[in-house]
């Protein structure tokens, strides 16, 4: 029974890697605009190729901080280029949601991330001409952890000025888009929305969680998503002064945890391993296979590591099939933050952050994965009861056909609808789940499942037992857009407000 869903493969299989993620998968990001936004430098990144082994954690970790900060001038680019690279000057025109400055960067050597390069020491470097971006007024960011995009840019002058935005360079993108006022309005909206996020995230010493949740419920701008998710999950403290040290400590803890294990994570051979690791291996191999990112050995090794560590630290549930799916949104969203300097050291950061965020998420649904999976059984029952309130006719039809909720909704709960919806839509959904209190992965998810089921209510009422099951095993969501998800989330929200406090209804 293959899941025939296309999984947005088109988004990821762009092998020349011009876009790291696709339009829908967290708003596509042109590599160069990435670099620009982050005003990155890779100061120490050229120093060494760290071995996969973590015997030098201390060195690794001491490098996590500071080195990823935003120094605007010092860039070294003396590695990994054989022969003089073609010097070229690029004018970056801002087509991004958030930034509106034009930058001229003369790139001395841009080493494009090559997916086929197994050596993760690949570094993307930009020799930036500081003087050419004096208009940036670039200050070292107050936050020196690598999570933050450069938030030191003035957030005020961000309404799009059509005239100054007129592309003057041939390499500038899509002049057409700017010709309609609709587009300008849209950009202004996005821009003001991004400013709101930015204000919450950096203006006070304590991030106002309430405000952040309120804003994030309706979707998070892709370049602020990693940061926002980590705060909403409680992985990153709201007290900004403590964020860097927390990250450092957590990442260190992660590496120490891995060091304590005796598993050879590079081992991909079919057997010769504990049954736990064996299960993780075979599942990681078949995780999101249609998305290119998950085919790389580095990705798979990272997932194996973090899933294994989670499993041994949570023996009551251990690894359960489907948890491999749940870590992928974190992995790819966080990757987006680091992709400009992907190398071994950063990979371990990425793993650690994914690990902790996955742990946070799973804390909310531990009962889903322990013996007999009582959490899921309860949710399935809740869903049934909810449908009896919302769409009794559908419930009667399902009953009449002998369809049990467990038969189709077990997977919805076990994998949080990740098997039914493309990952880009799941990412949007999680913006909202993470903004719910308590986090939406448990109770709110049931309301979302109800909205999901009822979307197909009319179809289902026409079908018999077999047709219903086949339909729901492979629901037609391939064409769904964020708008569909947002509608579904809104419906779920309404039902939650209606029924949440009528506690009797879900029992």
């Amino acid at each position, binding site marked *: *029974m*293959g*899941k*025939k869903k296309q999984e947005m493969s088109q988004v990821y299989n762009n092998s020349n890697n011009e876009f790291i993620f696709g339009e829908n998968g967290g708003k596509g990001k042109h590599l160069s605009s990435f670099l620009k936004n982050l005003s990155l430098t890779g100061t120490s990144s050229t120093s060494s190729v760290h071995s996969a082994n973590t015997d030098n954690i201390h060195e690794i970790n001491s490098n996590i901080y500071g080195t990823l900060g935003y120094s605007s001038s010092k860039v070294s680019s003396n590695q990994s280029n054989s022969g003089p690279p073609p010097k070229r000057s690029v004018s970056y025109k801002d087509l991004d949601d958030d930034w509106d400055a034009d930058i001229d960067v003369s790139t001395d050597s841009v080493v494009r991330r090559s997916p086929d390069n197994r050596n993760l020491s690949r570094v993307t470097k930009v020799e930036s001409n500081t003087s050419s971006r004096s208009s940036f007024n670039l200050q070292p960011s107050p936050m020196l952890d690598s999570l933050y995009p450069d938030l030191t840019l003035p957030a005020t002058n961000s309404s799009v000025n059509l005239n100054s935005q007129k592309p003057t360079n041939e390499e500038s993108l899509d002049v057409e888009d700017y010709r309609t006022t609709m587009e300008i309005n849209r950009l202004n909206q996005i821009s003001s929305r991004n400013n709101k996020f930015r204000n919450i995230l950096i203006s006070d010493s304590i991030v106002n969680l309430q405000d952040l949740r309120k804003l994030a419920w309706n979707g998070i701008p892709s370049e602020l998503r990693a940061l926002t998710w980590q705060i909403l999950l409680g992985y990153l403290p709201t007290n900004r002064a403590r964020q860097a040290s927390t990250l450092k400590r957590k990442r260190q803890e992660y590496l120490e945890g891995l060091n304590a294990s005796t598993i050879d994570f590079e081992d991909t051979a*079919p*057997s010769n391993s504990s049954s736990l690791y064996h*299960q993780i291996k*075979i*599942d990681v191999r*078949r*995780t999101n*296979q*249609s998305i290119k990112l998950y085919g790389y050995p580095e990705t798979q090794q990272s997932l194996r590591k973090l899933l294994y560590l989670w499993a041994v630290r949570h023996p009551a*549930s*251990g690894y*359960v*099939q*489907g948890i*491999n*799916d749940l870590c992928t949104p974190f992995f790819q969203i966080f990757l987006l933050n680091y992709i400009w300097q992907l190398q071994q050291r950063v990979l371990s950061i990425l793993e650690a952050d994914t690990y902790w965020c996955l742990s946070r998420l799973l804390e909310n649904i531990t009962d889903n*994965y322990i*013996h*007999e*999976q009582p959490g899921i*059984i309860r949710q399935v*029952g809740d869903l*049934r009861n909810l449908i009896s309130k919302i769409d009794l006719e559908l419930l009667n039809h399902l*009953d*009449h*056909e*002998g369809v*049990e909720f*467990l*038969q189709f909704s*077990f*997977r919805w709960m*076990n*994998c949080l609808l990740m*098997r039914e919806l493309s990952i880009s839509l799941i990412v949007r959904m999680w913006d909202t789940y993470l903004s719910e209190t308590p986090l939406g992965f448990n109770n709110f998810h049931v309301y979302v499942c109800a909205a999901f089921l009822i979307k197909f209510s009319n179809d289902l009422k026409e079908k018999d*037992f*077999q*047709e219903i*099951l*086949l*339909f729901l*095993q*492979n629901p*037609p969501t391939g064409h769904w857009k964020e708008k569909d998800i947002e509608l579904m989330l809104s419906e779920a929200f309404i039902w939650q407000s209606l029924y949440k406090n009528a506690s009797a209804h879900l029992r």
Partner: protein
Amino acid sequence: MADNTDDYSYDYEYLYKIVLIGDSGVGKSNLLSRFTRDEFNLESRSTIGVEFATRTLEIDGKRVKAQIWDTAGQERYRAITSAYYRGAVGALIVYDIAKTETYESVSRWLKELKEHADANIVIELVGNKSDLDHLRAVPTEEARNFANENNLLFTEASALSSDNVDLSFHQLLKNIYEMISKHQLDTNDGGSNKPTTGGPTISLTPAPQEKRSKNNSNCC
């Protein structure tokens, strides 16, 4: 929708419920998709809980519809999946001929069936991935002997090459058909509609009434 090979889904005389069990990664889902839709998916993901497919075929001139429940292999899902054994008249226990451990688990799966399924369920042992003969870890004869000793049907098949896939399902369904025909004769001889002692009722339909009444128990 996905069921377009099953044009005559309403036109059947017998409906047999079959379960597909075996260790994780042995290829249960692809065996099923090969049999029901003639598809093999290289990018298939792990099965979560239970999935379902059907195919109708002719046996002894009768149209027999196989309703097949494909289960997740992982231990954690056993509580959920074993609920589906109820009412099944046939089971395929699948192992991977290239992985000894999956063959060694077969007796555990047999025990599962003894505990949760009807006593006279027809069981077939299927060694999948027979295309991987160069990596073979389980000798055919060893598996065949085991099957004989335990009164199981046996085939080696390949969902990838589709070798023997139809045959293994056919063989199982034919045996079920014969067993049930015989069973019905026996019952009729007894002059009663009730099943004889020890012979459980063969569930031919999803039996909605029965299931509904049990909704609040046993996780269903």
